[in-house]
């Protein structure tokens, strides 16, 4: 049971770190705009992975959750990616 406690606090510490990095970089404006955008994106993906692993049990137990999550990501990728692709293409054809 102590292991559960350790999991919660490890997850929380990583989440705080991965939130603090992009906020600090935006506040401090240390990096170029592009570098900051990349950093925000990478920290977001890493933090989502941290939440899924430490708080939602993906990759620790609950294989059925991991399977349905993978399916959800495929569906979301097709619909979100497809929407953005089609609309960007339309925008381009309209000559904007």
């Amino acid at each position, binding site marked *: 049971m102590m292991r*559960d406690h350790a999991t919660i606090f490890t997850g929380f510490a990583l989440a705080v770190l991965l939130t603090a990095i*992009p906020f600090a970089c935006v506040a401090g404006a240390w990096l170029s705009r592009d570098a900051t955008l990349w950093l925000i994106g990478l920290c977001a993906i890493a933090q989502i992975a941290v939440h899924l692993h430490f708080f939602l049990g993906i990759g620790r137990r609950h294989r059925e959750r991991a399977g349905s999550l993978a399916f*959800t990501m495929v569906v979301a990728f097709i619909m979100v990616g497809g*929407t953005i692709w089609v609309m960007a293409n339309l925008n381009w054809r309209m000559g904007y």
Partner: protein
Amino acid sequence: MTMLSDTQTRSKESESDFGFWLYLMSDAILFGLIFATFVVMSPNLAGGPGGRDLFDLANLTLQTGLLLASSLTIALAHHTAANGRSIAATVFWMVLTALLGAGFLVLELRELAQFVSAGAGPQRSGYLSAFFTLVGTHGLHVAAGLIWIGTLIVQFMLRPASPAVLSRLARLTLFWHFLDIVWIGVFSLVYLPELI
């Protein structure tokens, strides 16, 4: 005092958890599409104010901090209850979670009200319509979560040892963590890029 003793209850338990998980997955697709709408609409300012003119980093940091802290407290509430520790401790963590969530919502509503009174309401531009839809949908979920926490606090005080109540707390915990994940997307995609 502690958990499910017989296998049948346990398997029913894990089935309800998985059913709720599938709801969360469908909700994730809903949010994914609202994010896609936002990305498509975000260049359409129609001469109105953009995020750069509206957003406030201090407010965003505070909101994010409150929601992140509530992620910890709800995990501790569930951990305390699942290990059969004192009801008082469980209720304490749940009340703390509700307060942090309410704080988040108050800051969000205050910010949105400021936008509307500054003439930057959802009808101003495509960008603001998409912004209000995304942030508003997330805020509605948080509000629903707060009602849920409130009812569960009462149930814990009335029927502390019931496995059914514990299983509801398990699902609330999943829901709450899910909302925090959506918020990571909101601050990373909507707010921070405008504040660079």
